[in-house]
C-alpha cells in the first residue's frame, strides 16, 4: 500500500483528505498541520507521494516540497489560491489541485504523479538533480516572497 503524506493546516479538511485517500486505497502519513511535523514524518519513514497545502497559516509549505524533490518523492500542491499564487516561480511547474477538491480529482492527480514518476525513473534521475539545485538557488527568494506576502497581509 502506497503511503501518502498529507500536510494541511485545517483539522477538518485534513481529516477529510485523509478519508478520501483511505477510500482510494492509500495509507496516510499524517496528517500534519505544519512543515516541522512534516519533516519529522519524513525523518521517520519513507513516503510514496504527498499532498501539500500551500499556505499553512501564513507559512509556505515549500521547505517540505524542496525536501521531497531531493528525495525524489512526487507531490501535488493543494491550494485555495488560484489568482496570485504565493508560490515562488520555480514551484509553479508542479501539479496543483484546487481547494476544495473532489475524490475524482484527487485520484486522477495521484495517478498522474505515479505515472510521471515511473517514466522519470526509466529515463534516469537527471531532472530531479536540476530541480533541486534550482530549488536551492531560490531559497532566498522564497523567504522574501513569504515575507512580502505577510507584509501585504498586514495592510
Amino acid at each position, binding site marked *: 500500500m502506497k503511503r501518502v503524506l498529507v500536510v494541511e493546516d485545517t483539522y*477538518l479538511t485534513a481529516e477529510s483528505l485523509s478519508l478520501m485517500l483511505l477510500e482510494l486505497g492509500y495509507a496516510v502519513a499524517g496528517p500534519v498541520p505544519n512543515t516541522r*511535523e512534516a519533516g519529522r514524518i519524513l525523518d521517520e519513514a519513507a513516503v510514496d507521494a504527498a499532498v501539500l497545502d500551500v499556505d499553512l497559516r501564513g507559512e509556505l509549505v515549500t521547505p517540505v516540497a524542496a525536501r521531497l524533490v531531493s528525495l525524489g518523492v512526487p507531490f501535488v500542491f493543494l491550494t485555495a*489560491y488560484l489568482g*496570485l499564487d504565493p508560490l515562488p516561480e520555480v514551484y509553479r511547474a508542479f501539479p496543483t489541485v484546487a481547494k*476544495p477538491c473532489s475524490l475524482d480529482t484527487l485520484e486522477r492527480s495521484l495517478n498522474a504523479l505515479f505515472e510521471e514518476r515511473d517514466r522519470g525513473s526509466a529515463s534516469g534521475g537527471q531532472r530531479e538533480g536540476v530541480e533541486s539545485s534550482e530549488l536551492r538557488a531560490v531559497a532566498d527568494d522564497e523567504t522574501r516572497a513569504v515575507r512580502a506576502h505577510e507584509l501585504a497581509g498586514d495592510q
Partner: protein
Amino acid sequence: MEPTEPAVRSRHEPDSGEGDLERLRLEAIVLELEASNDELRSANEALERSQRELEALRNLELLNARLTDEITEAKAARSDLVKLLDSTGIATIFLARDLSIRSFTPAATQVFRLAESEVGRSISDVRCHLAYDSLESDAREVLEKGSSVERAAQAADGRSFTVRASPYRSVNEAIEGVVFTFVDVTRLRDAEERGRRLATVMADSNDAVTVVGPDGYILHWNRGAERMYGYRPDEAIGRRFDILLPADSNDSASELLERGRTGATLEVAEAGRRRHDGSTFDVSLTLTPVRDAAGRVEAFAMTERDITQQKERRAHLEFLLSELDHRVRNTLALIQAVIDQLVTTTVSVPALAEALKTRISGIAAMHEALRREKSGEVDAVRMVRMALAPHVLSDEQIAIQGSAIDVPTRIASPVFMALHELAINAKKHGALSVPGGRVVVDVEVEPDARFFDIVWKESDGPVVAHPTRRGFGMTVIERGLEYEAGGRVDLEFEPTGLRARLRIPLDGEQR
C-alpha cells in the same frame, strides 16, 4: 488854371474889336477842350475802376471753384471716415464741450439707448447700458487736461468693455469735445481667463507637462515635471529628452517622437522613466504633435502621469481578490470536510441537515468576526464573545468574563470551532437545554503568559452522564484545537454540569 487867368481877364478888356472876337472864340474853344479833357479823364478813371472790379470778380470765381472742390473732398473724406468708423463696429460717440451729442456710430446703440434724433441732446439724458457712473466726470477731465482716460466697465448682460475717452481737437488744436470709444473685450477677457486658468492648471498639475522640440530637446517644463523628475526648469530646458529615460530602456526619445509625428495623439499606457537622482518609475503618457499653419510638426506636447501608485493599488487589489478567493475556497473545503465528518456520525438525513446548517452558521459567524481583524491579534474575551454570539440568548444564560489579553488571530479558527461545538452540545444535552441552566466562560492567563485558558462551566442543567460515544462535536473540540493550535482540552463530565478547560499556547505550536 493859373496860367489861363490873364487870358480870361484880357477877354473882358474893351479896347479890341476884331481881335477881341477871335480871342473870345479861341477862349470858348479852349474852354470846350478843357471840358472834354475833364470828361475824358473821368471816363478813363471809371474804366480803370471797372477793370479792377472785373479782376477781383475773376479771383473770387477762382476761389469759389477751389473751395467747392475742397468742400467736395471734405465731404467725401467725412463720408469715408463715417463709413470707416461704422465698419469698425466700435461704439463711438462724439460729445461737444457742453457734453451734448454731436454724432455716434451705429454700434454705440449697443451701449446707449440712442436714436438719430438724440443728436444735440446732453449725454446725461441718454441711458447707458454699462455700469459706468464716471462718464461725465471723465469727459470733463479730458476737456480740462487734454489727455485720454481709460476705464473698464461691465454691461448688465455680463459683457466687458474697455472705455476710452479722448479729446476731440479742431484744426488749430483747440479741444472741441470728447470722443468716447467702447470696445467689447468680453471674448478677450474670457480667453484671458481661460488662458490663466489653463496655465494654473498646467503649472499646478501633478502630471508632468512638457514641450519637446522635433529634435528631442526640452522646450517647456512645468512644476509637475519638476516634482516628478527632480529637475528644475533651468536644468531640464534645452537638454535632450533622453535624460528622462532609464539607462536600460529600449525606448529612445527620437523613436517616440517619430511615432508621435505620424498620428494625431499618441497614448502610451506604460513607459519607464528616470529621475534626476537616478531612481526609476513608470508613467503613462500622451504625446500630441503641435503643428504650425503649414501643418509641419513644430513641437510635441507631452503629458506624463506617474502610475506607481496606480500599479501598487492594482497589485494590492489583485492581492485582496486572491486572498478572498483563498478564504472562500478554504471555507468551502472546510464545509466539505464538515459534511464528510457529519455523514459518518449522524444517523438521519434531517439530523444531518440540521447539524450542517448549525455548523455553516457557526463558520459564517467566525468569518463575520474575523473579517475586520487586521492587526493579527484579537482580544481573547472579545473573541469568545464573538464565537458565542450566534448562541447567546441572554447574559443570564452565558456569562463571559476574564482578563484582557491579545491572542494571535491564527488560533481564532479552532477556538471558534471548539466553542461553537460546546454551545451546540450544551443546547442539546447540557445546561442550555433547560430553562434556568447557566454557562460561565472565563478567560484566564497563565502567570508565565505562555498559555491562556478558556474555562467553560455549565451549571443548573440536567444531571450529566459521561457520553458513551464520541460525536462530531467532541472530536472537533478535542482534536481540532490540538491539531491547529497545539492546544489541549480537558473535559470533565461532573454531575452538576460539564467543565471544559481549553489550554492554548500563545507562542506558536506546543504539541
